[in-house]
């Protein structure tokens, strides 16, 4: 296996060829914020939080912004993860996410355990510089065990991917486009009517916010469980079913 060396911020690191910049940074314990990315699922590079400045790749010196979750490390790359330009982008992205939905932390099931909330703290978003849009969105409580509150959905598509790639049921999809995008179940039916759903709850486990939740949970009671997915994927990959 070939190895390449690269520099992330001030760290020189060597990683196997094909390693993504996100994995390389994790190896050097350099934190890069992520939201749509989840280990165990395919990467879609949609949330743009993991953008980093890359130079020295393909002979290009001018820094380019690339998503760390999908960019493979190459020999001689120089990566900056926290420049002022990147910090401005990350804060704006979080502001855009907050303003396009209806995120009311105080009454949310995920309050205190929400990846969006944590990221807002991490990027220093103490308020939004852009106006809130207060869109009219709906809640689907047709499923016997779970609920979907579109007000809290950030369209990261983790639920779509986990249901398709891991559970193999493909209950979820994205409907419409642009600002009208929304997660749909089945062919835009109430979730409870979708016979493909196996009630496995993986979508609820991986949801970074309070959009997908157990109906028994009330304010601040929802905990996401992305580690369950990772344990499952590890067991499947290595055929080790006992911890």
């Amino acid at each position, binding site marked *: 296996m070939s190895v390449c060396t690269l520099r992330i911020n001030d760290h020189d690191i060597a990683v196997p060829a094909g390693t993504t910049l996100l994995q390389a940074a994790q190896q050097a314990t350099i934190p890069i914020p992520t939201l749509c990315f989840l280990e165990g699922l395919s990467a879609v*590079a949609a949330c743009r939080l993991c953008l980093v400045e890359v130079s020295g790749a393909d002979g290009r010196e001018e820094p380019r912004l690339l998503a760390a979750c999908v960019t493979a490390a190459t020999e001689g790359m120089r990566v900056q993860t926290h420049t002022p330009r990147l910090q401005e982008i990350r804060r704006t992205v979080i502001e855009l996410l907050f303003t396009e939905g209806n995120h009311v932390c105080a009454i949310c099931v995920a309050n205190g355990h929400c990846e969006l909330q944590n990221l807002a703290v991490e990027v220093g978003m103490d308020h939004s510089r852009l106006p809130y849009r207060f869109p009219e969105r709906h809640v689907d409580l047709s499923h016997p065990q779970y609920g979907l509150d579109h007000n809290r959905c950030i369209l990261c598509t983790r639920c779509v991917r986990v249901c398709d790639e891991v559970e193999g049921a493909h209950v979820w999809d994205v409907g419409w486009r642009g600002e009208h995008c929304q997660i749909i179940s089945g062919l835009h039916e109430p979730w409870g009517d979708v016979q493909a759903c196996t009630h496995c709850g993986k979508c609820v486990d991986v949801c970074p916010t309070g959009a997908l939740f157990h109906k028994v949970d009330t304010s601040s009671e929802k905990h996401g469980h992305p580690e369950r997915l990772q344990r499952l994927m590890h067991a499947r990959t290595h055929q080790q079913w006992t911890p």
Partner: protein
Amino acid sequence: MSSCLRLCTAASCRSRGAMALLQSSDRPVKEVGCLGPCSEGPLAAEGAQLLSLKPAEGEPLAPSLGAALAGSRAISADDPFLKLQRRLVLARCGVVDPGCIDDALAQGAYQQLQAVLAANNPSAVIDTVRRSGLRGRGGAGYPTGLKWATVAAMPSDQKVVVCNADEGDPGAFMDRTLMEGDPHTLLEGMAIAAFAVGAAQGFIYIRAEYPLAIERLRRAIAAAEARGWLGTAIGGSRFSFGIELRVGAGAYVCGEETALIHSIEGRRGVPRPRPPYPAEHGVFGLPTLINNVETFGNIPPLLRLGVEAYGAGTKVFSLTGHVQRSGVLEVPMGTPLRTIVETMGGGAPPGRQIKAVQTGGPSGGCIPASALNTPVDYDSLKALGTIMGSGGMVVMDDTTNMVDIAAFFIAFSREESCGKCIPCRSGTVQLEMLLRKLLERRASAADLTQLEALCHTVADASLCGLGQSAPKPVLSTLRHFRGDYLELLEPGEVVR
């Protein structure tokens, strides 16, 4: 053939009643594609003489073709609109009957394909394209020869050639003109490309809003198959190549190549990050060559003329907006903008002045009248903060407010955003809200600063070309027409 009356029945003249004239004719008339100055339509031609059948201002269209011809106005061949053109891609457009392959064959269609197959040297074809310096005509201007060489070098026994005919920029109708007027040039260019890169399967991805182009392409593909210019054993050689039409469902973003590939595969038309590039991983995972209609249209004339005579090539533009004469024109690359807009297009309507020219649609920008001497080529336009784009050229006179224009394009991008990445999905909404605030004279200087900052963030952080270039109409108007923005600030605001 030359004495036969030719009548344009392409979309523009059709909208002006060309079909009624055709049906009322008592003499043989040949249906042809676009003859050029659409604003003078319906247009007809007899030999080299172009005739405008446009009724006088306020009058109805003549009841029959005979009557229309009697009242027609000749457009001289010395008219700058015609004289300054160099028709390579559109050489047969307006000359051949797009529904008749015999006519196209008589005028030289498929001769270059035949020559290429006889020579049986794919790398020589790629070398010719590379030496010509031809760059992608879809907007980005990627070197065509390099793209072909990359796909040709891919170690796969199955490859795909795709024609991007999802022409969606407001004010752009060059590709439609070629497909409606001379579809066989496109098919020939695609077949030559397929031979050069080693592909056997082709797709034309065309937007549903072009029903006439779809109909004529369908007919042309069937005719070419019947004559052995598409399908198996083309021209008696061992080369096989089939073309399928894929009709888009109205999403602008499907003109982005990765979204287009998803759409061809039957999936949701959203872009994905590159790499891998389509040359490596395209339609159904196969190495794929994607070029735009006009790029393929350049191939047969390039091979016919050779690199020397082809020179810098041409660019087809669709000229619209506040000009006296609008239509489709093909000019040598590097023609000054002023020549196109003022000399050929006749300039602004009487009593008005040209304020700006918009190129590149929602991904482009506005060029101020002071920069009209700029030659139209990829690099000069980029230096002005716009792009060559696919060829839409919208002229705006001094009655235009540039903030209005910026708001129009941002509204377009907002509507057409696929919604996958947040900077484009939500950023375009916030940008339009800020522009509306300005237009309603409620904005402060701080809003203007925020507008500019958000433009840069959306451009830097978006996933695909649509989002990355969506703020360009705002940034270019801010650069060249800042005064229009400052005038709209709330009264009492300090103007910086």
